């Protein structure tokens, strides 16, 4: 079916971009946290 590629592509784009964004956020915060003591984080 010719539509299948488009439909699957839309789901892949959706969840891949959300996954990449989440991964980037976690990685950036991990590198930022290297110089900050865990007890200084307001949420922990």
């Amino acid at each position, binding site marked *: 079916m010719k539509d*299948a590629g488009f*439909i699957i592509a*839309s789901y892949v784009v959706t*969840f891949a971009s959300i996954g990449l964004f989440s991964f980037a956020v*976690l990685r950036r915060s991990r590198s930022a946290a290297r110089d900050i003591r865990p007890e200084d984080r307001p949420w922990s």
Partner: protein
Amino acid sequence: MTTRVARDRVTGTPFTRGLGIVTIAGIVWLVIFGLFVTPADVNQGETVRIMYAHVPGAWLAYLAFIVTALSSAMYLWRRTRSLTWDRIAGASAEIGVLFMGISLVTGSLWGRLTWGTFWTWDARLTTTAFLFVTYIGYLAVRNLGGTHHQRARRSAVLALLAVLEIPLVHFSVEIWNSLHQEASVAGNTDVTMDGLMLFTLFLGVIVFTLMYVWMLLHRQRALTLEDMLDDTGLDRALAARRTEAGVS
């Protein structure tokens, strides 16, 4: 060393961890229902499945931009002024841009299959593109530099102006003759949608909301860490010079 850092879930708490697990389960559920369980549409055929990602993406983008505006108002209001509100605004706008982008791409794929074109300068599509670009501009303005409060003030004012575009986007399909269909569920008392399709659409909205909350918590905390680094950066530089000069 690296493994210890990796195991330290910097911006995570038991709550976000639990939320993350529920969200992933929800995504799996949504994909199974969206791609396999729901029926094909009489007119659109299988293409209707794109809607379960496209519509929640658009709605959550609106929600994210509204949260940005509300947090910006909280920052500007003297009694609640706090950089936490500013960071929530910034984090929410980033996620909103992400969701709006998803909605534009999935909508474009859907448009190619149903309308026969990826893009057209129709009222809804044009206003949505403008909204998307506005919030990319908002994010750029946030990063122009200055103190945290300077950043917070200028971006808060911009956020309160930008949110005014949302009603224009939403009602564009009713104001003008538009290729885009009118709202199928929101503001429509007579919903003409198959039960399982409607259920899956709402499931999509719930799953996207969970993703939004999870990303917002993490991103907001990451921004807090970055701000703390900026604040301590000068202290640490001075401390290094003091050590160098032998001053205690």
